[in-house]
């Protein structure tokens, strides 16, 4: 799979025929998904650090454990919502069996939708991996 628009000869698809995705701000969805992962990672550290600093040494992590799980669920839900947009608005599919070579708004949208879905899976797995240590450990 490759983004064919960069490699298409200009005479096949005249420049300016399709709106540029960057100008329209359509690529935000690509950035948003891993940003949610990064925000969850940062917030998880903050919760654990503040809890361990304010609570007595070796305090139980029972409460922040569920905060971290809650943050994970919220993050996963936000990613699922973006995944839904990637499917509905961008026409993205998770598995593609042909190259996206069409230099058109439709082709670019499909490409963004597909990449967004892949990033959704990666980010959800990363969030789960961040939550697991919080579930296993009961102490600071």
């Amino acid at each position, binding site marked *: 799979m490759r983004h064919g628009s960069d490699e298409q000869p200009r005479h096949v698809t005249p420049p300016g025929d399709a709106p540029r995705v960057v100008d329209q701000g359509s690529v935000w969805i690509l950035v948003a998904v891993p940003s949610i992962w990064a925000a969850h990672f940062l917030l998880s550290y903050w919760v654990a650090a503040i809890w361990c600093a304010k609570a007595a040494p070796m305090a139980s992590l029972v409460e922040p454990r569920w905060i971290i799980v809650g943050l994970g669920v919220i993050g996963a839900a936000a990613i699922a919502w973006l995944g839904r947009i990637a499917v509905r608005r961008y026409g993205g599919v998770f598995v593609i069996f042909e190259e996206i070579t069409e230099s058109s708004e439709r082709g670019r949208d499909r490409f963004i939708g597909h990449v967004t879905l892949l990033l959704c899976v990666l980010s959800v797995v990363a969030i789960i991996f961040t939550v697991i240590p919080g579930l*296993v450990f009961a102490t600071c």
Partner: protein
Amino acid sequence: MRFSIYLTLPLFLAGCSGRHNWLASAGAEADRVEGLFWVLLIGAAVIWCLVIGAAVYAHRRQVDPSLETQARRFIIWGGAVFPSVLVGTLLVWGLVILRDITADEGDLTVRVDGERWWWRVIYETSEGDVVTANEIRLPVDRTALFRLTADDVIHSFWVPALGGKMDMIPGRETRLTLTPVKTGNWGGLCAEYCGGAHALMRFDAIVMEQADFEAWLAHEAEPAQVAAGDPGYTVFAEEGCGACHTIRGTEAAGPVGPDLTHLAAREKLGAGIYEMTPGNMARWITETHEMKPDIDMPPYPDLSGARLDRLVAFLMSLD
């Protein structure tokens, strides 16, 4: 050339034996880490063979477009789903081991403070703290809880044969449990670079039968037997050694250096690096920085003759 390379291979196996061998199965915690290690090693070897085998198979086989759908599914399941689940499982397994070996319960509690470059060791007993240094004795088949901290830089406490290692961090307390299952003298060391004499920051971890350990601990709790007017102690006091070192039962109560109350009962000198002999003791006092660079203790090169002999004899009597 190739044969000579093979000849050097046994040298690498030297790390697989001896008192620092983490595959010695001398501790319950080390056994758990070893179990994870073998699963990882064998699993990685099997997966490597499968991947290379698949690559060779794919390279030799002629392209068949009708199998592309199957191939893509294979890549998704074998290249994404399976590794994610496997790594997740190993993560949970490793975390559970880490959680268990950092539990905060034990049959006895030992506080260890990492200094540059030695170990302050404090046994917590019902009669109060028992302070010693640079040697840790443990009863076999009992779980010892270590409460670890550091004086000014980060160290790491590790007895490879007995269990996992744990950072010692100034201003924080970390915990580690060790459950020795074999008696013997195992090697301990600092596993985090901490300055000039880092490689010389070692200790003996001596695992004893329960009764022997209790007798040792009771003796260690006793003050030193120093006769009034002991000529060696006189030298010790005149040279100002008591400003840094403590000998319980005397006026020496310095908190800076290792407690010397039962110094000669230890097997090693200088934090696990020299045999405890009169010759090494004399050299330690006069050529301190040749024996262990950068340490805070100043050398006493002017101390010689009868005064040095008396001081060494006194220190070697502290058993």
